[in-house]
């Protein structure tokens, strides 16, 4: 079977979802009598993400709601929603217990289809990285001074490695599902120096496609997806992707076997050859 060079899929542009309803009335009744109504942040294929509060008005939280799908049989719909809410929560709890940086689970209702987790103050890596790359371009820096970017890449690699080390695969690793937590940096002077932009703890988010697995194949596919996401979203940062892999290789026992496997995955791409 010949190996074909398959061009990478185009990365999703930042598209506005077709229907972004501002009204929180889509949510279950428990969220409708709130004086500060949950604010819709984004809509994916499966879930709606809101910003809300937990217990006290000062404690922000992220509310992920999986509405029921009218096309699915009600029994199947309930079964899938329950399974997905519970498995995402289990994965998050396991990560947290083992010290992998993820949001804390606050509350959930698997029948109603919602999951409430800690609100991570900060920004996704995609935005921060693009900001840093743009600033550099504008100030005409060609090379050198890449230590901060290297540092970020290494932090990403070791966070992913720690997650894999405890038997979790993410299933959708992109720079939009990695966040940089703002700790101790006051928002005002965050952008004063260029290099501060890439500071912060790397936090993994959105475990909607995650599963518990220790298979090297699954881990390698996770890395491959992340590598392609870098290639299509931040081509100028791609040469430093080796830093991610280098830090990953040191992060848990068996990581080097995964890196070997990654070479196979790269060779075949994600796709199989097609028979009639």
């Amino acid at each position, binding site marked *: 079977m010949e190996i074909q060079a398959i061009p990478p899929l185009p990365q999703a542009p930042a598209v*506005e979802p077709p229907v972004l309803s501002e009204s929180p009335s889509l949510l279950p009744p428990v969220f409708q009598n709130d004086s500060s109504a949950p604010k819709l942040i984004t809509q994916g*294929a499966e879930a709606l993400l809101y910003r809300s509060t937990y217990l006290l008005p000062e404690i922000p939280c992220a509310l992920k709601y999986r509405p029921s799908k*009218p096309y699915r049989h009600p029994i199947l719909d309930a079964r899938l929603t329950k399974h997905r809410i519970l498995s995402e929560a289990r994965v998050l709890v396991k990560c947290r217990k083992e010290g992998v940086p993820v949001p804390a689970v606050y509350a959930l209702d698997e029948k109603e289809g919602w999951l409430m987790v800690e609100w991570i103050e900060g920004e996704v890596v995609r935005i921060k990285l693009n900001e840093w790359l743009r600033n550099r371009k504008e100030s005409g820096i060609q090379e050198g001074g890449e230590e901060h970017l290297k540092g970020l890449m290494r932090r990403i690699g070791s966070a992913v490695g720690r997650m894999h080390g405890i038997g979790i695969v993410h299933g*959708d690793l992109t720079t939009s599902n990695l966040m940089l937590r703002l700790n101790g940096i006051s928002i005002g002077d965050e952008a004063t120096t260029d290099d501060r932009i890439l500071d912060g703890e790397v936090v993994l988010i959105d475990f909607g496609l995650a599963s518990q697995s220790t298979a090297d194949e699954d881990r390698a596919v996770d890395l491959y997806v992340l590598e392609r996401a870098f290639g299509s979203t931040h081509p100028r940062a791609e040469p430093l992707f080796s830093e991610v892999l280098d830090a990953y290789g040191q992060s848990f026992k068996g990581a080097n076997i995964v890196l070997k496997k990654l070479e196979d995955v790269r060779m075949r791409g994600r796709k199989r050859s*097609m*028979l009639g």
Partner: protein
Amino acid sequence: MAEAKVTMNDVNCICYTKGPGMGAPLQSVAIAARMMSLLWKKELVGVNHCVGHIEMGREITGADNPIVLYVSGGNTQVVAYAEQRYRIFGEALDIAVGNCLDRFARTLEISNDPAPGYNIEQLAKKGKVLLDLPYAVKGMDCSFSGILASIDLLAAELKANPEQRDPLTGDVITTADLCFSLQETVYAMLVEITERAMAHVGSNQVLIVGGVGSNLRLQEMMGLMAKDRGGNVFATDERFCIDNGIMIAHAGLLAFETGFRTALNDSTCTQRFRTDEVFVQWRD
């Protein structure tokens, strides 16, 4: 040709299926196409079968830039156009959805006339009880072989003990319920991966092509999903969904008009020919 009142002089080129498909039929067609090409001195255009389905669907329904769900006995793919290629966003990792349905029809020993899938669809209309089957979606990909194994097992149990009842409602389980459960499960998977692709590329049009695309329940479910996203679904009936010659001619003509030719020496066929290998010069 006599019926259409055209002569060989009206023919621009000979389009033939280069692949993918079964070896023997592909080879016979390639030989016939070469012979006609030499006999009538018309140039050859090799066409990808899947691209034929997609272009045919676009032409018939008028869908401009849809997410395409291509579902047949041999293929299950979610396809979107970007930069001169039909890119495969998701696909079945083992057997195709049509193959799963056909093989289950054989398990039940129901008629192949006019099509096994059609007879499953008719039986499913009488089903009410939803039985538990595996649901195998991973990202934008899916898998059907485990579902087939499970439903075959349920069918064998039902044959051994026809008095089984649904624990929830107390209804007697029938083969119609098996067909109903199979359809509800596999079509929910297909709609889900299509929706994920739509969210990914920000499109709200869906086009369903391929033989399974003529299933009205699949069209209905897809319609409900598209409506939720503020979009709509384009589908055709069995005349255009099922493999046909005009789709090869149509896709070949589009390529021909952009100057594409297949030289006699290159007029081979191949069983493996991915949709995303075709350079789509005729679209913006």
